[in-house]
């Protein structure tokens, strides 16, 4: 592998920005969670690159935990989205304002 660490970080940063953009601009609950997934993906790439840079398995171990957190977040988040959809009948986050 003849890639500088900076390029891996650049790739991760670009992906993270794409995720932030998706989370902030889309008005659709499913697309918001998708953006969070993209951000976690970018963080995992940065961690694996750092593990290679410092020759330590710590970064790879952290990616394992990121994966578990992502699975939890998606399962609970999607359950909440289905619940909100049944309640309000739309994916628009601004329609979930019925505090009852």
């Amino acid at each position, binding site marked *: *592998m*003849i*890639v*500088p*660490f*900076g*390029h*891996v970080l*650049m*790739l991760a*940063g670009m*992906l993270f*920005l*794409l*995720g932030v*953009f*998706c989370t902030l*601009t*889309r*008005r*659709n609950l*499913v*697309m918001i*969670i*998708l953006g969070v*997934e*993209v951000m976690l*993906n970018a963080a*995992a*790439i940065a961690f*694996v*690159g750092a*593990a*290679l*840079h410092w*020759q330590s*398995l710590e970064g*790879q*171990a952290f*990616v*394992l*935990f990121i*994966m*578990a*957190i*992502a*699975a*939890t977040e*998606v*399962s*609970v988040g*999607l*359950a909440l989205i*289905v*619940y909100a*959809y*049944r309640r309000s009948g*739309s*994916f*628009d986050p601004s329609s979930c304002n019925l505090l009852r």
Partner: protein
Amino acid sequence: MIFYLTGGLIVASTAMAITRRHMVHAVIYLLFSFFGTAILFYLLGAPLLAALWVIIYAGAIMVLFLFVVMMIRTDATEEVMFPLNQWLPAAIFGAIYMAVGAAVVLMTPGTEVALPLMAGSPREFALYVFQNHWLSIEIVSLLLLVALVGAMSLGRGKGRDRTEDEA
């Protein structure tokens, strides 16, 4: 160079995914992005993580997304973009942050050195994780159990509300 090819593929498919109007298309494009990430993990010396990434992310999480998107009627989700004067300052700040981050990465000494070769074999990796992080593994498994219970209780509450509405 496989890294740049894969990186370009990941960024392009993610960009396609986050701009799709149809959610099924977005999920399929993101699937390509995650496959590219798995290839990248393999290149960066993490073969076990590459396999887990395909199995858990592409196999489980994205299929969960597909289930939800297909379970629910997805027509007529016409999204409105924010007006220009609302997101223009945010875009400018984001661009500045991007430039500063790129400058920090490029000016830090040591980031231009080519990465050394290292392959954490699945055996080494598993030994490392269970020798140094066994408590975190238990906590994460407990978290997954809590998430399972939470998702089930949310699903149950939904069914009960619907029967109350029908009654």
